[in-house]
């Protein structure tokens, strides 16, 4: 197993004691594509970031088991974590505008990621950067390599981010809302690209999103989170057979073109979901 999580809890100190952001989450991930879906504040991002130990400094994290490829992440020291972060596990974030360095060309940033993790001369790294850009299906990789982030569209920026993450050839890719800042058509392209790369390279993928139907097209399994808990986990193809009222609610409250409704169904939140 690539990732094994058992009873993960993430807490934050507040004025009135500890608030629990993630409660008793258990999941495993092999060379497969797992989607984590939930609304803002459900703890989906925190769960994924726990694997990289990239949590806010005031977060308190406990778990019966939190392992990456057999390495205990709870006891691992900073150098050991650095060997995982970015090298064996890559993170793609929501908005490439904020995660790319505005004063470096796309090619230089990818080349730097390459050199940090694999060494080699500048020339080799620059060539590798262009290869990587070609792998993320950029038609004119040499031109994009020479462009600055502000000269790239949102979708193009996200491709550059993905290329950068692929440089060290990671085993796990965590994508945190990778497409919610993008247009629908670009969104589909990027997700298809990620899915394709992950399948071809035999990586594990953790795709975090608030859009349940969308995620189901690109994942093998989907875990639905609500208020810090996984309320339901099921194969992506069987979402229509979801039993938890929250999962059903997420599917039913979306307006659709194919099934017009006069009024949208509004989710009735049941306090018992919290227990």
């Amino acid at each position, binding site marked *: 197993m690539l990732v094994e999580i058992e009873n993960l809890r993430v807490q934050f100190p507040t004025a009135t004691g500890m608030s629990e952001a993630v409660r008793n989450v258990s999941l495993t991930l092999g060379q497969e594509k797992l989607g984590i879906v939930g*609304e*803002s504040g459900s703890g989906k991002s925190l769960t994924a970031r726990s694997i990289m130990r990239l949590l806010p400094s005031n977060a308190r994290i406990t778990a019966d088991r939190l392992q990456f490829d057999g390495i205990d992440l709870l006891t691992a020291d900073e150098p050991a974590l650095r060997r995982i972060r970015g090298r064996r596990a890559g993170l793609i974030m929501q908005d490439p505008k904020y995660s790319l360095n505005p004063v470096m060309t796309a090619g230089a940033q990818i080349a730097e990621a390459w050199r940090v993790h694999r060494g080699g001369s500048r020339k080799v790294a620059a060539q590798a950067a262009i290869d990587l850009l070609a792998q993320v299906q950029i038609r004119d990789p040499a031109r994009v390599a020479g462009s600055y982030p502000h000269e790239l*569209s*949102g979708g193009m920026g996200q491709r550059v981010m993905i290329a950068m993450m692929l440089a060290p050839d990671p085993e796990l890719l965590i994508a945190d809302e990778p497409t919610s800042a993008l*247009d*629908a*058509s*670009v969104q*589909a392209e990027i997700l*298809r690209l990620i*899915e394709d790369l992950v*399948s071809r390279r035999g990586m594990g993928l953790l795709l975090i999103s*608030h*859009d*349940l*139907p*969308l995620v*189901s*097209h*690109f994942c093998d399994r989907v875990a639905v989170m609500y208020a810090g808990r996984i309320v339901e986990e099921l194969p*992506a*193809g*069987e*979402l*229509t057979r979801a039993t938890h009222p929250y999962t059903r*609610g*997420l*599917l039913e*409250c*979306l*307006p*659709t*073109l*194919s099934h*017009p*409704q006069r*009024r*949208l*169904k*509004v*989710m009735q939140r049941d306090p018992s979901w919290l227990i």
Partner: protein
Amino acid sequence: MADMIDVAALFVRFGSTQAVKGISFRVAPGENFGLVGESGSGKSTVLRALSGLNADWTGHMAIAGTPLTPRRSRDFYRRVQMVFQDPYGSLHPRQTVDRLLSEPLLVHRMDNIETRIRRGLAEVALPDSMRFRYPHQLSGGQRQRVAIARALMSEPDVVLLDEPTSALDVSVQAEVLNLLADLQQARRLTYVLVSHNLAVVGHLCQRIGVMQGGELVETLTAEDLRAGRVKHPHTAALRELSVELEEPEGAHDPGLASGR
């Protein structure tokens, strides 16, 4: 009946780029008109020119028969209001809900401020206890309700909606869309809704304009859009994608990702 909104041959430029290239549409009173397109298609630019935020336009625009000039009258700002995409960014961070809602009333020298604020909060289903909260103490959905209440304070005829639900969770989106539909019924409002989400536009609007590269490539009814009676390939592409991705995997096949 006379048109509530009439836009003809509207051009808007940003510096040297032509963001909107001569588009025309009309909206009847009480009608919902949707503008869809990808980012950069110019849909939001049309809305900002209409609202008076962008004065650098040429062409003809009229609200209820009155032609618009780059400089708008106070009465215009009373009759046409706007709701923005990001409900946190559109509320002043240092002002309470009460202050936010009273601002349009003070500007337009309206009476019964107390009653109007209470009624405004009730209309968007916010409890009175929210009245003296700051935006950061509210959830995303509550903030968007405040923004809607503020837009309605001056009793407008036209409300311009710029991606009003795209920053919200899907469950909250449903609540806000229902609220917008109810308010329109109750107040006989005319909406112009801009969104990249075809399903949202199709849900709320009777007629839809599809924009691409600053041009309005097709105007069609929501009925036709749902049934797939589209003429322009861009509309067809947007529709196909939306229909394919809105259903969960396994609900209907063959989807674009099936067989992989």
